[in-house]
């Protein structure tokens, strides 16, 4: 499972909520805990143990909102594709012993003393529509996915990204949309809002 993200280890997309993380964790644990028939035929006892340890590690990180946020920033910083892509080869095969932990990108954030997120994933000093778009694309999210996450209509999100401020219902609304957008991207909402609105030209 080298190069697998925590999301891939649990078999979830990177934007899911905590309930889904937990359900995926339970399912993954059931696969490797030795109760499941198929894994007897397909994986060795060592491979099952390795996977079980990885699943626990992934869940410990992703079930903690602060750690998860930092981890997401790591992912974005490294341009890692963080969506679980179960059906798209090439696929990691059973975990090679040893190599696993060291080779997986990105490094797991330390649970006790979370390091500050690496620079590139912070909200840039200058924020306009193109920067929003770049942030979104670095997470491999579509406008529609942001819309689903943020409950903000995709035509408003598009207007934000295109800097068509007049197409938005007003500054107050734009502010609200930006907060939601920032949360969907898991970046600081205050910084994003302040920096984007600096260049506001609309009503």
């Amino acid at each position, binding site marked *: 499972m080298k190069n697998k993200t925590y999301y891939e280890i649990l*078999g979830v997309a990177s934007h899911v909520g905590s309930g889904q993380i937990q359900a995926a964790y339970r399912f993954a644990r059931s696969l490797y805990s030795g109760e499941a028939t198929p*894994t007897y*035929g*397909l*994986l060795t006892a060592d491979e099952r143990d390795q996977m079980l340890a990885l699943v626990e590690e992934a869940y410990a990180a992703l079930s903690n909102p602060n750690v998860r946020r930092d981890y997401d920033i790591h992912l974005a910083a490294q341009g890692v594709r963080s969506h679980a892509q179960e059906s*798209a*080869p090439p*696929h*990691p095969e059973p975990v090679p012993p040893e190599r696993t932990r060291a080779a997986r990108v990105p490094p797991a954030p330390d649970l006790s003393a979370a390091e500050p997120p690496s620079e590139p994933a912070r909200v840039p000093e200058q924020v306009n529509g193109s920067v929003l778009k770049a942030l979104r694309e670095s997470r491999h999210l579509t406008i529609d996915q942001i819309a689903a996450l943020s409950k903000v209509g995709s035509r408003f999100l598009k207007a934000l990204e295109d800097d068509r401020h007049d197409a938005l219902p007003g500054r107050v609304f734009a502010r609200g949309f930006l907060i939601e957008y920032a949360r969907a991207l898991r970046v600081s909402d205050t910084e994003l809002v302040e920096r984007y609105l600096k260049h506001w030209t609309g009503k």
Partner: protein
Amino acid sequence: MRETDLTSEESRRFEVWAFGGGKGGTGKSALAASVGFQLSRLGKRVVLVDADFGGANLHTCLGVAAPARSLLDLVRAGGTVADEYAHATPYPNLRLIGGRVDEGAGGLPVGWAARLSTALRALPVDLVVLDLGAGVGPETVEVMNLADLKVMVSVPEPSSIENVVSLLRSLCLQRLVQRLPSNEVRRRLQAVQSGEAAMRVRSVGDMLREIEAVDPSLLGAARALIEEMAITLVTNQVRDDADRKFGAQTAAVVRRHFGLPMSYAGFVHHDDAVWRTLRRGKMFMVDASRSRAAEDIRRLARNLLQRADQSPVF
């Protein structure tokens, strides 16, 4: 769910399905026959094909005699017209291209698989259901690779799923060998198919690495060839809750650890009605239509038709 409510898209689409899975006795023939029968009842024109060379028994699953002309007769004759080999059964919309128990597949004419594909696709029907034999012999793999939908039948036992994975591995290797335009890649993969390199190459990721070592420009094509395969798993002879979970778990492990696209179509309970009716030369779908297995088959046929994946979504 009404029995007559196929959407127009569902009834129009032509497809070839293959039921396989490597191991003998898991229920490939019973499921191929009963799913084919169910879809014929829903109004699809169906031809069942016994492609278990040497172990043909699909006719007994339908309660009919072995037909005079078999699939191997068609293949050996090198014909591309299969209609006259498709014998009527007592059931409307359902015909059978059968096999004989005494015949083996040895020495098939060159190019037989492509001609068989042409012949089956020219049949004036909506669905062709192929029933495959056990093992991962080249004929079995070749026939399975002809199918638009590959249905893997497994019972909830480790040895059965090992057979499924071994068949899947052969399917992928054969597909890549046949379709990738490079003799060198072909040689490398053929060596992997049997030789000592076999141990090294378990998953699709391993296969892609072999290809990359020879010609990285073919990686994209190789990936696409694997991804476009429609493979689904059915659990047969389910007895308890652990068995009911087997299919979704297996499909997840196959996807995550072997890199193979595999969905999960559902399960069929172990049900004495299946072999009791069979023993009397009857079909459980007709003579035990209220049985648990018959109910499961109706649900399964629907899932297969709609390509509904029963895997949990997170």
